[in-house]
């Protein structure tokens, strides 16, 4: 049987001298969502950073299309987009410029109209020409989401994507995730908040040993 698109084999992760988890394994196919759950300090963020390839595992490996992401990191990064705690939004640039540089760094041609459309869809039509410094935390998060949408990646790795978002934005985010999965995308996300994702099969992964009530 071939490996799933994204697969994790016997993964172990340590922070300092403390082993967070070991022997972890799962696979994720197109159209699937993996919700990573667990208490604070149990290694959710560490797992996501291992999946992106930013951190290196203590043992085991992460594979993309059956190959270790260390070996195919460039191809993998072209198909993966990560949104961490920090937004990766430059305060000195306005939202459109932020998207332009994000496109440039990922080797994509910048489509101004599409970028503006996306920002407007995310409710940022009134602050397109303002430096991000003056935007609120939630608005900056939306700029980061716009970059995520424009990246056109297959795999989204989202670390607490709902933090700092208001009710409308959460609903919007849920819609974005649903659309992405329907279009054949994949999502790995951590969240403390409940997600309303009807019609989506959700895989759950518990990191650490603290049980968490159902959130989705």
């Amino acid at each position, binding site marked *: 049987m071939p490996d799933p698109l994204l697969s994790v084999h016997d993964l172990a992760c340590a922070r*300092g*001298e*403390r*082993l967070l988890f070991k022997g972890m394994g799962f696979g994720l196919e197109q159209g699937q969502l993996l919700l990573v759950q667990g208490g604070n300090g149990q290694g959710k963020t560490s797992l996501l950073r291992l999946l992106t390839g930013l951190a290196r595992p203590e043992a085991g490996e992460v594979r993309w299309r059956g190959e270790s992401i260390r070996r195919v990191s460039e191809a993998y990064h072209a198909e993966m987009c990560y949104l961490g705690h920090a937004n990766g939004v430059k305060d000195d640039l306005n939202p459109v410029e932020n998207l332009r540089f994000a496109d440039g760094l990922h080797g994509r041609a910048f489509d101004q109209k599409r970028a503006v459309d996306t920002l407007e869809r995310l409710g940022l039509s009134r602050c397109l020409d303002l430096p991000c410094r003056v935007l609120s935390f939630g608005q900056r998060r939306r700029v980061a989401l716009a970059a995520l949408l424009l990246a056109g990646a297959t795999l989204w790795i989202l670390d607490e994507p709902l933090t700092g978002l208001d009710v409308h934005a959460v609903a919007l985010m849920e819609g974005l995730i649903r659309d992405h999965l329907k279009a054949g995308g994949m999502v790995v996300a951590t969240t403390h908040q409940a997600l309303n994702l009807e019609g989506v099969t959700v895989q759950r992964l518990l990191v650490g040993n603290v049980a968490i009530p159902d959130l989705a």
Partner: protein
Amino acid sequence: MNLYTYASPANFYHLAGKLIPWFAWGAGLLTVWGLYISFFLAPTDFQQSEAYRIIFIHVPAAWMSMFIYLVMAFWGAIGLAFNTRLSFMMARALAPTGALFTFIALWTGALWGKPMWGAWWVWDARLTSELILLFLYVGIIALWAAIDDVKRGDRAGSLLTLIGAINVPIIYFSVKWWNTLHQGSSINLTKAPSMAAIMLQGMLVMAIAAWLYTIAVALVRVRRIILERERQTDWAKAILEAE
């Protein structure tokens, strides 16, 4: 991962424990022998009189300072290439002793230079590179001290050691060349005085003693580092309880 089992910290901890006394006693005995040669067998130098007896520690210390740095770079490169934990620990265990020998080489160099050239310090290639080497050691130790995360510290320190290892020869030759152009400092340090065989022998004995001492000290230090990092494992817990 064969390499991994051979370089297992648990095995190494016990092996090091057995080896340390041998190296320590060897270092002690050779030092006594070396000192006997240096002060009682080696004749008075006709040019430098008795002051030359400083070289019996100066030269071995200078050799060790550079040799230890190269060994650290070697362990760092092995660690970066094969991800072996023990090699990083070895690199860390060697650094303080390397810095110590660098300091000794500088100190004794100054005390030798004053009666020989009439100056505590001259900016010649060897002294200057030794000084820069001390800065490099201090920088590496400071970097380790500043990074709390063990894995990051190991790798960052090794990368710095490597770039320093590339740079030290460049510094040596640049200073040497710089000196040949500056006519003002006419002291010629490169001309080695003809050395009696017994003097060379004394230096070699002292160098081997310093080498054994370094190994003994580094092993003690690496044992402490191993215990600290492995304290969650059963074997380390057993050792701590037994004490």
